[in-house]
């Protein structure tokens, strides 16, 4: 059974990695 807190942590993981991906995209844009 999947609990609500499981989804919370899955989403949290994706948010943290998305944040780092955005930093990467920002640097790439800045470099160009």
């Amino acid at each position, binding site marked *: 059974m999947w609990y609500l807190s499981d989804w919370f*942590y899955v989403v*949290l*993981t994706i948010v943290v*990695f998305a944040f*780092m991906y955005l930093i990467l995209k920002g*640097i790439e844009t800045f470099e160009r």
Partner: protein
Amino acid sequence: MNSTLAAWLQFLFLVAALAACYVPLGNYIAKTFTDKNHWRVERGIYKLTGVDPDADMRWAVYVRSILAFSLVAVLFLYLIQRTQHWLFWSVGMANVPTDTAWNTAASFVTNTNWQNYAGEATMGYLAQQAGLMVQQFMSAAVGLAVAIAMIRGFTRSRTDRLGNFWVDVTRGTIRLLLPLAVIGCILLMAGGAIENLANYHTITTLSGAHQTIPGGTVASQEAIKDLGNNGGGWFNTNAAHPFENPNPFTDILIIFMLLLIPFSTPRAFGKMVGDNRQGYALVAVMVIIWAAAVGGVSFFETHLGTAGVGPQLAHGTYEGVETRFGPPGCSLFAVSTTTTSTGSVNCFHDSLTPFGGGIVLLDIALGEIAPGGIGAGMYGILVLAMVTVFVAGLMVGRTPEYIGKKIRPAEMKYAALYFLTLPVLILTFTAIAIGTKWGQEAIFNPGSHGLTEVVYAYTSMANNNGSAFAGLGSAAPFYQITGGIDMLLGRFLPEIFALGLAGSLARQAPVPRSAGTLDTRTPLFVGMLVGVVLILVGLTYFPALALGPLAEGLH
């Protein structure tokens, strides 16, 4: 034998063993990542996973590969822990609670191995082997891959390609980590560490009580845990447990293994850039800082005048120390585990004297560059070397160049971002913890010691060390969540900036040496680099250290 003499002999033996491995292992690491040929097993893996091993990646693609690989790894490890009870080899363990499972997943994927749980009472054999141990190989290989990509920034010119992440991780795992881990496992088993898949045994003790004797593939996990600077342990007490670290032989073997690859990587750097003296200069910096820390902690843990009344009455700072190894063995282990990103312990760091504990905290705060975690130490000290060259250029009018590459404002911006990331994370999370009731509720010690515990926790997690000052209730959801974020950002943001810096270096044309070039192979440069390391960290963390361990020690 006199314990001081034994400590010196142990230290000198360790230095001699590491020195003997420096050239052959460093050369082997360099050969591993410069070899034009792929092994048959590697070609099989590439074919299976659809990887083109001859495709070179831009730095940003290299970073994307790391992030994608690590995102999947965190989710997969979380899933294994949350379902372990229904899978085989659970040895009766329940599914791991959500907050612990997430914190642990973030912890092992980032090479931190911070543990909010007792391994022998929480993780079944499948979760240990297919979950945690796989990540101990993978996270170590990722760190090494980033260091190698960073070195390629110096060796390549007029290109934006830094190599292939999948090839680097595969080679690091198959050619380096696996063979060393097999040898380490056999040696640990020969020393008495356990390795089995037996069910736990409940026995009746002589006094009539019941005791559960755990089993496990402890030796194999211990080997990669140390070689990959992962840390943590199969058992809650880590390397203080007799099944994991049975005697002084295994103790010194463990310390040797956790220092082995980080101390040999500068040789690989020297070999790859075609100037071995560059490697000697960096390893000299590492040795100076590591040896000074060993001396400092040993002094405060064995000179009882600084330790308070209790230790003087007991003739030793034995609180929290495994009596088989004593304060000298604890000091050497504590420094080695915190100057690398290992974090496994053989004594209780919270029980170190205030100044001794302050030094191990400083070891981690230095960014673990002496010698540092596998790969992470190398790219960390390379960024610091560039800062040193830049500072020296400003001071004495030399051209800011390092290994034939100019250190321009673009490179310095990456270096600044690299070094600002960790203090921002550590100090911000610490401020939130001590300023809110969620954080305060789990601080069990008052005053400066309580502050030290919080600073140590976030410093350890952000730097991917994993050791802890106990006394902080880090299993509280607040610390599980903020700690997990701290570990993920502390691992991958510096890697993004390091690889961006490497990409910037690789695009440059090489600069020929001239009369204005600062020689970075001399004792003068070694001294300057040590100074920059201490000043940079000192200025950043001094207020926190002053209010924490220094205030406690001087009280």
